[in-house]
């Protein structure tokens, strides 16, 4: 498996609290992605990055922000968590924007 690590793997948080998920890679890939996976919706793109400090919105970016201050780390922040953000979050990396993507193990987030 590609060197990609998500942390934490599981988290339970209360509504209204800020939450940050981390994606760390050791592959020096240029592209990094954050997806959420919910039953019936497949994988929906939240934000992605095409380089350090270069990010763009995906399909479901409202309520989320991201930062990429160095190649290996891509952070996803929920400024004020809501119950609708309960989901499984996957990070993915890709060497270029049109090459295969490698996924992390996922983070299960529950907002109560």
């Amino acid at each position, binding site marked *: 498996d590609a060197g990609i690590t998500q942390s934490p793997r599981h988290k339970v948080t209360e509504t209204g609290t800020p939450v940050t998920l981390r994606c760390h890679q050791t592959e020096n890939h240029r592209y990094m992605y954050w997806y959420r996976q919910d039953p019936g919706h*497949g*994988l929906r793109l939240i934000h992605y990055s095409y380089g350090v400090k270069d990010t763009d919105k995906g399909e479901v970016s409202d309520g989320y922000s991201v930062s990429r201050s160095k190649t290996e780390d891509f952070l996803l922040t929920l400024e004020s968590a809501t119950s609708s953000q309960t989901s499984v979050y996957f990070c993915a990396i*890709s060497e270029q*924007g*049109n090459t295969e*993507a490698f*996924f*992390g193990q996922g983070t299960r987030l529950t907002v109560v």
Partner: protein
Amino acid sequence: GQQVMQIPQYQHVQEGEDFTTYCNSSTTLSNIQWYKQRPGGHPVFLIQLVKSGEVKKQKRLTFQFGEAKKNSSLHITATQTTDVGTYFCAGTNQGGKLIFGQGTELSVKP
């Protein structure tokens, strides 16, 4: 914006039957990728198609990319229980945005 639709959402087959999932994009794609996700796991890359009309095979799996580069299909011949999982297509545009379809969940009855 770019949308990728995938059907069917679920498919239940008897072991040995064939299976097909279809993917359609609202825009022309640079390429199409296919992934498999086993229950409880993460998506794993299967293949990428780039050329218009391209067909690729991996053992019992056949992948096609449409002439207009807006649709694709995955066909599994003679399914086995090891084929169980969710199959996703994903399209990229020139900006590198990787958009997934909703996936097709395949269950195989022995």
